[in-house]
């Protein structure tokens, strides 16, 4: 099992979710987050004074999947979250040791 964490632009969430659902992904967790990468922040103006907003709003998606599905999922995220401009985000993949479905007690890949 692997966990796929994707940091994406908020307005791309719907596209990515639809693409993942089409692949048969049955669940995901989404968090509103703030951060920056190479994009850094951007400048805003309030009453004539410029200020830099370092942490821009992003969406973090977390999906746990079978090893076999990971490549497909990462591909779908990369394709659907892309605008080609700086600030599109990143995808991280890491191993997951265990999963438990709380309602039934199922464990491992059965639980995801």
């Amino acid at each position, binding site marked *: 099992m692997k966990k796929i964490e994707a940091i994406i632009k908020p307005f791309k969430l719907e596209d990515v979710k639809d693409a993942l659902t089409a692949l048969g992904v049955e669940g995901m967790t989404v968090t509103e987050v703030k951060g920056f990468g190479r994009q850094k922040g951007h400048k805003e*103006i*309030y009453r*004539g*004074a*410029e200020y830099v907003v370092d942490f821009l709003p992003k969406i973090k998606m977390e999906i746990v999947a079978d090893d076999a599905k990971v490549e497909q999922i990462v591909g779908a995220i990369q394709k659907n979250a892309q605008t080609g401009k700086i600030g599109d985000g990143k995808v991280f993949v890491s191993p997951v040791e265990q999963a438990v479905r709380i309602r039934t007690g199922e464990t491992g890949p059965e639980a995801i």
Partner: protein
Amino acid sequence: MKKKVLLMLGLLVMSAATAWAEDPPTLETNKAAIELVQSHADYVWTLVAAALVFFMQAGFAMVETGFTRAKNAINIMMKNLMDFAVGTLAFWAVGFGLMFGVSSTGWIGTSGFFLSDWTPGGDPWVLAFWMFQVVFCATAATIVSGAMAERTKFSSYIIYSAVVSMVVYPIFGGWAWGSLFNGGGWLEALGFIDFAGSTVVHSMGGWIALAGAIVLGPRLGKFSKDGRAQAIPGHNMPLAALGVFILWLGWFGFNPGSTTAANKEISWIFVNTNLAAATGAVAAMCASWLKFGKPDLSMSLNGALAGLVGITAGCYNVSPNSSIIIGAVAGVLVVFSVLFFDRIKIDDPVGAVSVHGVCGAWGTLAAGLFNLEGVTLQIIGVQLLGIAACFVWAFGIGFLMFKVIDLTVGLRVSPEEEAEGLDFSEHAGNAYPDFQVSAYAQK
């Protein structure tokens, strides 16, 4: 259905006929009846206008909270609520008498305290007039709140609010408007033109606000070490915009209501008021667009208010074309004035000093410059004298008052309380418990 209508008509004819039979009208009774209708209309218009001006309190509250941070929203609502509540009592007890009481010197009224001009069964005009004047008093008082936002101790603010409504606003007001009731002031005797209060209400509030902002000092983080003004973004621009729309609406009571008479002239005052506000907003938008590269909402909102403040003095003695010029100048003036006060390190979170103080002075001068019946050096001289007298009185007394408060009970909260936010430190509350705090707000 038809039967019912016929029955009603019959009753109506009969009642009219009996009335006719009882008392045949004469020229005198007709004249009295017409005067009664006019007098009732005057009452209704004055009180409807008072209600519109009262609603401006909501406008001020929304503008102030929109332009400041979420962590101070409860404190700002409390200040605006108490401005009106404490101010009403202060003006009832003392202020109205000082402003409109009998004055042999032209400097201070001496009768009519505690609304003693009215006794049950007596002429209720003083009540309608008082209601219209108390909402004006509260307008002047609440202007100051914005300039002192986010760092003033709440208990000290209440003291300020009572003193202003009891003494500072009414005494100057009596100089310019005393003769509207039992009084009479030296400034109006010279021919000072300030129909609805560019000076009496707005500059008054604006210059006290300036004194308050100076005595308080800037908010933490407003100026960097090298002295540059930093942005402290307001937490809710839609609320600020709603506040300005409410104020604009309220001004249709503020200016046209100042006739305290239901007449045809109010349409002229309405139009002047609206034209100046619209031009002020457009001019401020253009000025901010040219200056900052983008059209700035908060400045454009200030521009609408600047136009309204600017036309307040002259709304009944300048032409609609002149009101456009007055609004345009006010709209540009307010943008540069806000930047000016930032440059000299006076922190006014909502631009109250620029909108009300500076544009109030401009409007008062403009009421002389664009006077429909012609302009003379004497008119300009008196207008300038009124502007100066207001500055000396409002800024002088204001400065003294805030200094005394500061040295006795303290005017400002501690840096820790300010950083924490006044909602928690002064009121043990949280205006938005269901929302996450943004890193923006934690300067």
